[in-house]
């Protein structure tokens, strides 16, 4: 069985090459993929959808460039949802790098909507429809401070406007005026919102997580501490699917990736099986 000896010592760059081809081909030759929406994403969508008019959706952007491919489609899908349903939106970040990604996502979706708008009322206007509160270190400051006063933590927004002068923030004093807080994060930020803000002030928390964090965060979803979850690129695709049913146009990056994800998963499974077969064959020979 010399083939297994060869496969056991194969250059790692051949493995890299195979993976790259397997991922690239479905992107270049896409096939439509059906997306089945699972309960965690469905619950999050319903929670955002049912925010009363006098309350605000608070999005915590907590992903950095390293996890943007998973988290950015989630953030964009939620922003599209909020803008389509005219839900007031406030955004913030617990760390510095996600702030630039928050600007990018908000600007992108605002431009998508304004390209379709025909009147001023239809348009998405900063300050009237949404606000980017910004970043205040360390994380404990907004985690506990927002429960007392949002403008106390963010007296000015990211662009330097006085927060309490913006129309979107009229009547929004603290976390009691937040319908749900959705933390789109590549790390543990959603847990901190649950542990600090929810424990002290009772705010509903939802999360958009990278798949790496998924298994440990499910324990909080099971207890109801997370109202809903989007998990990884699949979760983002599920939310995109639900938003698309509201007739919101826009590119669905997560859904486009499902073909490549499937091919790559099958390839990894094949690698593991081949590796194990070779291992057992050579072990038996010895």
């Amino acid at each position: 069985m010399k083939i297994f000896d060869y496969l056991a010592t194969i250059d790692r760059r051949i493995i890299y090459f195979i993976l790259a081809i397997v991922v690239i081909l479905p992107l270049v030759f896409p096939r439509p993929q059906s997306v089945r929406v699972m309960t965690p994403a469905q619950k999050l969508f319903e929670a955002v959808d049912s925010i009363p008019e006098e309350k605000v959706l608070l999005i915590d952007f907590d992903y950095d460039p390293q996890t943007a491919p998973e988290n950015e489609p989630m953030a964009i899908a939620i922003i599209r949802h909020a803008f389509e349903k005219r839900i007031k939106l406030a955004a913030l970040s617990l760390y510095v790098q996600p702030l630039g990604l928050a600007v990018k996502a908000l600007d992108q979706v605002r431009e998508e909507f304004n390209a379709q708008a025909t009147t001023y009322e239809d348009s998405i206007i900063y300050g009237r429809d949404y606000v980017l509160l910004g970043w205040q270190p360390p994380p404990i400051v907004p985690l506990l401070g927002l429960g007392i006063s949002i403008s106390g933590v963010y007296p000015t927004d990211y662009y330097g406007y006085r927060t309490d002068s913006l129309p979107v923030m009229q009547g929004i004093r603290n976390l009691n005026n937040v319908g749900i807080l959705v933390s789109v994060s590549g790390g543990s930020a959603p847990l901190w919102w649950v542990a600090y803000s929810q424990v002290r002030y009772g705010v509903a928390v939802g999360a958009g997580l990278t798949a790496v964090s998924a298994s440990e965060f499910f324990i909080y979803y099971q207890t109801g501490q997370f109202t809903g979850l989007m998990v990884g690129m699949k979760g983002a695709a599920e939310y995109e699917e639900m938003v698309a049913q509201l007739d919101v146009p826009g590119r669905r990056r997560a859904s486009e990736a499902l073909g490549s994800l499937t091919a790559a998963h099958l390839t990894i499974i094949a690698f593991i099986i081949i590796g194990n077969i070779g291992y057992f064959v050579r072990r038996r020979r010895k």
Partner: protein
Amino acid sequence: MNISTAFWVWVSALLSLCIFSFLYKDNPFYKFAEHLFVGVSNGYLVTLTWHGVLWPAALRPVLFEGRWWLIIALIVGALYLTRFIPRISWMVRIPIAISMGYSSGAAIPAVIQADIVRQVQGTILTPDNFSRWNAGSAGVIWTIILFIGVVCTLSYFYFSREHKGVLGVTSRIGIIFIMVGFGAAFGYTVMARISLLIGRLQFLLGDWLGIIQ
């Protein structure tokens, strides 16, 4: 193919390829890109720290808004910089003590409530937990399995006694649950890592080369 002519798209693409070149082997392009990343990231940090915190929350209130008492906070913060002066470097412990003390204190009720009390509430055999699954009578079975799984997992990590007898059985069941949990984590991790690669390729093949429409 519809190759982009935008300057910054090319910059992004070439920097991405510099990092990908590491897959072949470590090389000057990769090292250049890596150091550039750290340098510009820190420039971004300085920018936002100044515009977002130091100027509006500290210096402007002290200099122009009459909140002179914030000078105390500025002095305490400045003690961090004594780290670079060996004779008085012990003073760096003061701002560390303040930050660490406050965050440790705030963590105690948070952890107790969110990570212990609520998690116990979600595990015990109550009608609330039975109905949480929306699965009728099957919800009772799922809750019992969950309860057994948690107890057995905890018993596996009890190392003060040898895993024999009843403890041996429960810890064996516990390791089965743990393996399933880690298998689930591994499956999701594979998806996560592949997603990061797909994201980059979507940019290179779409925004840069225009192969993906």
